[in-house]
């Protein structure tokens, strides 16, 4: 008897729970149905009276175009202009990167090695292609291949063509600038600290002594 009572109470509790859950779902269902009805009404209203949109060409001539410029239309037009401005920044940047990737540099006669250009090329070719190998140039002095980006700095060291090195050497050998006793030479034309010609070392020494006495010593360039 007692077991039967326990069974009955358990059944009642289960049915109560089920009823409560059902009620919650029914409430949720009602809310969604209301929302769907509202959206259907809005769709039907838009079908019967579509909203005016700003003219595609800007519509500056309102009288001829017959556009009724309401505040809502003005808002939409101003917003679209702002969006177009921001979009065009991205379009210009992408267009520039695409053209840069395809073009050949007029200075070094190689394709652009910038990160953006390389990424563009890799993306354009797809995942199956290998990464673009940089063009290698052989040094005429040591016959080693170097990529274009490092070729100039290697040539500086290998062949001693750096003007800075020439300036440093001349600064060490000649502390002051000889006034006018130098031979015109294209090699020394760009140097401020000029190395005196080998044929006239005495003249240079005398000139430097004179320059030092007269106080015309120029500061060393670093």
């Amino acid at each position, binding site marked *: 008897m007692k077991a039967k009572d326990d069974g009955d109470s358990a059944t009642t509790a289960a049915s109560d729970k089920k009823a409560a859950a059902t009620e919650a779902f029914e409430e949720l269902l009602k809310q969604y149905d209301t929302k769907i009805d509202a959206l259907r009404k809005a769709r039907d209203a838009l079908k019967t009276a579509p909203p005016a949109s700003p003219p595609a060409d800007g519509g500056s001539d309102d009288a001829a175009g017959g556009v*009724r*410029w309401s*505040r809502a239309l003005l808002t939409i037009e*101003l917003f679209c202009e702002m969006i177009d401005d*921001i979009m065009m920044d991205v379009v210009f*940047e*992408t*267009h520039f990167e*695409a053209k840069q990737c395809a073009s050949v540099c007029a200075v070094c006669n190689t394709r652009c090695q910038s990160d953006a250009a390389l990424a*563009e090329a890799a993306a354009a070719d797809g995942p199956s292609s290998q990464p673009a190998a940089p063009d290698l140039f052989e040094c005429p002095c040591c016959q080693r291949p170097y990529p274009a980006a490092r070729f100039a700095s290697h040539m500086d060291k290998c062949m001693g063509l750096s003007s800075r090195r020439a300036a440093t050497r001349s600064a060490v050998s000649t502390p002051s600038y000889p006034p006018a006793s130098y031979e015109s030479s294209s090699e020394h034309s760009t140097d401020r600290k000029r190395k005196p010609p080998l044929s006239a070392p005495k003249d240079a020494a005398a000139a430097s002594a004179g320059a030092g006495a007269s106080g015309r010593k120029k500061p060393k360039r670093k």
Partner: protein
Amino acid sequence: MSMETTPGIREDLLRRFIESGERERLQEVLRSKLQASGWQDRIKDKCQKFVHENSNDLDKITVDDMAEEVTPFARSSVPEDIKAEIMEDIRAYIFRTLPEADV
């Protein structure tokens, strides 16, 4: 809101919108929000897809072609919350500048 405006007032409003600096301020707000939402990255992807589709005629691709292709997508893909916020600011400015008595 559906009040008709005369042609001169529209141009005057646009000019005042730029000269007051409100356009620039709202544009910066809009730009930062779009950047944070990833909209600019999506536009860039769209542009790059256009370039890849026309990779055979890369020399003939113009900025106008790319803009024509991307503009509808750009306008429709702006997140709704950002659009609502900025349009509300613009609408508030228009109401301040064009009160009903002036129309």
